[in-house]
């Protein structure tokens, strides 16, 4: 039996503007085990992305509890969140979010710079990650010189270069054609097989089938959970 990597209970997130109050997460509960691959689905505006952002320590909840590896982190300040984030979490986005001014190599190198890895080691690790994603030959190109599939492979390389325990993927195939999409899903599955926990938000039933478990959300809450296959 694996440990819970993530356990959220009664998690709330409310967005307020001058006139409107939007409840994005309404006392949400959820658990993710170490090494698990979870897909989160639901209609637009149901709170998927908010959930992912809180899980990714990019945003803080308004209430409830968030245990990460057994430690309560709901009250963490920005610096603490940034520290935890850069050591343990990698992100993959629908729109890739590569920095246009940096080359492929430099984009992937970035997380290592911020965690203070030495230059010689950086080079080794970045090259290993690029090789794994089969994008090594493009290392000196800029993102806008790559196809969508290639860009997403770079983004995945960047997400894994720090060897994070958790990868959060937000519609990772949303901007890709089906063959490129399948390739990226295969990459994520490989990573998961190697032990990385993955939480993926998706609209695609096809992609969701790669996961161990699907959580369906509506109005900021979990409505159903279905187990597709057992975690090894």
């Amino acid at each position, binding site marked *: 039996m694996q440990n819970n990597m993530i356990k959220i209970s009664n998690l709330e997130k409310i967005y307020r503007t001058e006139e409107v109050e939007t409840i994005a997460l309404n006392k949400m509960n959820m658990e993710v085990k170490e090494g698990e691959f979870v897909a989160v689905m639901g209609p637009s505006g149901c709170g998927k992305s908010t959930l992912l952002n809180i899980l990714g320590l990019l945003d803080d909840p308004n209430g409830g509890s968030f245990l990460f590896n057994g430690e309560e982190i709901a009250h963490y300040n920005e610096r603490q969140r940034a520290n935890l984030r850069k050591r343990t979490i990698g*992100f993959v986005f629908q729109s890739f979010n590569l*920095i246009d001014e940096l080359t492929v190599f430099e984009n992937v190198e970035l997380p290592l710079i911020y965690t203070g890895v030495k230059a010689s080691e950086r080079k080794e690790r970045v090259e290993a990650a690029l090789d794994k994603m089969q994008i090594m030959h493009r290392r000196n190109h800029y993102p806008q010189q790559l196809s969508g599939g290639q860009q997403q492979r770079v983004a995945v390389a960047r997400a894994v270069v720090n060897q994070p325990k958790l990868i959060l993927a937000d519609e990772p195939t949303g901007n890709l054609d089906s063959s490129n999409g399948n390739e990226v899903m295969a990459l994520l599955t490989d990573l998961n097989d190697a032990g990385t926990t993955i939480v993926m938000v998706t609209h695609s039933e096809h992609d969701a089938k790669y996961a161990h478990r699907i959580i369906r959300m509506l109005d900021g809450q979990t409505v159903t959970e279905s187990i597709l296959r057992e975690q090894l």
Partner: protein
Amino acid sequence: MFQNYFKSAWRSLWKNKSTSIINIVGLSVGMTAAVLIFIWVQNEMSYDNYNKDAANIYRLTTNLKTEGWIWETTPLLLADAVKKEVPEIEKIARLYSGDMPVFNINNNLSYEKNCAFVDDDWFNIFHYDFIEGNAASFANDINSIILTASEATKYFGSANNAMGKIIHADSLNYVVKAIVKDAPVNSSFQYSAFIPLQNLLRNADRKSNDENWDNANYITFIKVQPTVNISALTKKITNVLQLRSGDTEKQSSISLEDLKDMHFETDLQSSFFASGNKNTVYIFSVLGILLLIIACVNYVNLTTAKASLRAKEVSVRKMVGAGRMQLFNQFLSEAFLVSIIALAITLLLVKLCLPAFNTITDKHFSLSLLSASLWKVVGITLLSAFVLNSIYPAMVLSSFKPLHVFRGFTVLKLKDNYLRKGLVTLQFTFSVMLIAGTIIIYKQMQFIQQTNPGYNRSQVLMTHVPPNVDFSKKDQLVNVIKQELLAQSSIQNVSLTNQPILNIGSYSTGAADWAGRDTTFNPKIAQLSVDADYANTMQLQMNEGRWFEKNNESDKNNVILNETAVKELNIPKPYIGQRFTWKGKKGQIIGIVKDFKYKSLHDKTGPLVVFQNPAWANLFMIKVAPGNAQQAVNALQKIWKQILPGNPLEYNFLDDSFNQLYKADRQTSSLILIFAVIAIIVSCLGLFGLAAFAAEQRTKEIGIRKVLGATVANITTLISKDFVKLVCIAIVIATPLSLLAMNKWIQSFAYRIKMSWWIFVVAGLIALLIALITVSFQSIKAAIANPVESLRSE
């Protein structure tokens, strides 16, 4: 890490070329202006500080209790007396710089205008860099002379060449014993030749005159031990003066003035040294800071305006682990990079502008990259620009919440927008103030040129009677010259006077008496000695009575008053024929001359007595026939050489002296004009960038509006409106501020223009027009773009 920062910074600059160019050009121009101003300010504030012992050097000034006067000079004998009686004084040296000896070098005659007669210890009190020779050889020989390097080069081709050479001056031979480096720009002592003071006193007349305790003709400096109690020392020196001069009523006293404070001394009756004005220094410091701020505003505005374009990058960096501090440092690096590039351009611009700046300020600054003081100025400017540029944008940019970016929220808060508008308004407020200032100064300068001074200053040549002419033969000599000059067809008239008409600095108190005078009424009256030809030469107008007549014996005692004198002295009617005693001579008032401006327009025309005293005839006023200036000069040169072969001829035109009179005002006006232009250019650069950005951001909106039927004019108005509003606010703020500031300036003129409301309207309109042209360029470009293109790009 930093390598990465600079790499990203460089690429980001490269990617946003137009913004980068605006930022760097604006910053360089602003920094150049600031550096030039600060070089000047630093120079003013550090006067005479280059002397190692500056803190222990003092000038002795003489205070006269009854008159309330402070003289920078002291009696000749004071130095000798205190040297003996006051042991606290380490070194003492006197300076006399009132003579211009005529140097004869290989039969080339010239006045040495910056000649100082000094005691030996002068070179032990003040710092001099000896290139050749030393101070001791100067002290050992009364006939020695020290030249500065540039003066030695002027006379002998090079410093080396000058050593040991003989300079013949006023019947004496001086040997060049040493060469010193030229005085630094921030020295009060801009002398180019030094002669032992003892040499001056060889002249028996001068010696007996100056060894009188009542005559204070020498500037005395002392150097003391750092531990000396200055107030006790002051008392001691005063005691010596009072005792030796027999001043039992203690009417005179001595003050010690710190060498470092000398440049800004304002209480003196007059001074041989160029004095500074602290107000001007403050005003220009503020100007320098404001110009720098204006330049930095562009960077802050454009960087924060374009922040949304950087938001994605910031968010991505945050997600992959960048802390706020790391991002902050990254944007600091960017600002630093921009500042450093701007600095390199600034140094180049400063180098290019320095000759012109030297001309305007009448200084001789040089750009030496080894000079510590230059780097101090440049360093402070760079640091200020960097701090102003970096902190706020870096804070804004590093504070983005990554989520908001991806969710499409506006990344900038409302207050950032207000701040940006506020900064643009600030820039234009300052620009409008400078434009208004420029107009007012220009109008006043025009007023000065056009005001009828009451005499005709065109085509008048002036030359001094040489100071070394034998006094007993002077009368006859000047008359011979006058007759020779009058014989020339190129010369219409010649007259002799004591002072140039446009700036009479000669006054008398208690020398006048007239019918009905209250015996306690002793006003200060300006005095002008003339001859019978003066009124015609200068084309003065008479109000009533007549001018002096040739060969009229009684006119030797008679006087002419100006209109103000009649009023202020309360002369009883009828004015003509009233008894008037002037300097002991009993005569009559024979005429009232119409008031003419015998001072600059800064000063009100006061009472003036015009009289005849041939002993005071020191200045030829030569009226040239129209179109004959060159012939007149040639004739003057020929006559001079013939009659006064031992004296070089130095002449100038009254018109030039008139311009010289307003030199400081013209300096100010040129500088303000230049700074106004810089402020406007830099502000408009920023506006140009902001307008471009606004147009770019609203491409889609403009496209939709055009599809719905908006005209080019509609769109142009739409984009320009926001900016025009800001400029209008700036005009409203700037008007009272410039009114206040310029009122202060114009108060320094006794005769001045009225500051009409239209000046401020024009200043506002100029700023508005320039801003409008700047903005229109971008908005029209956006307005005429094909909407199909802009909508497709979305």
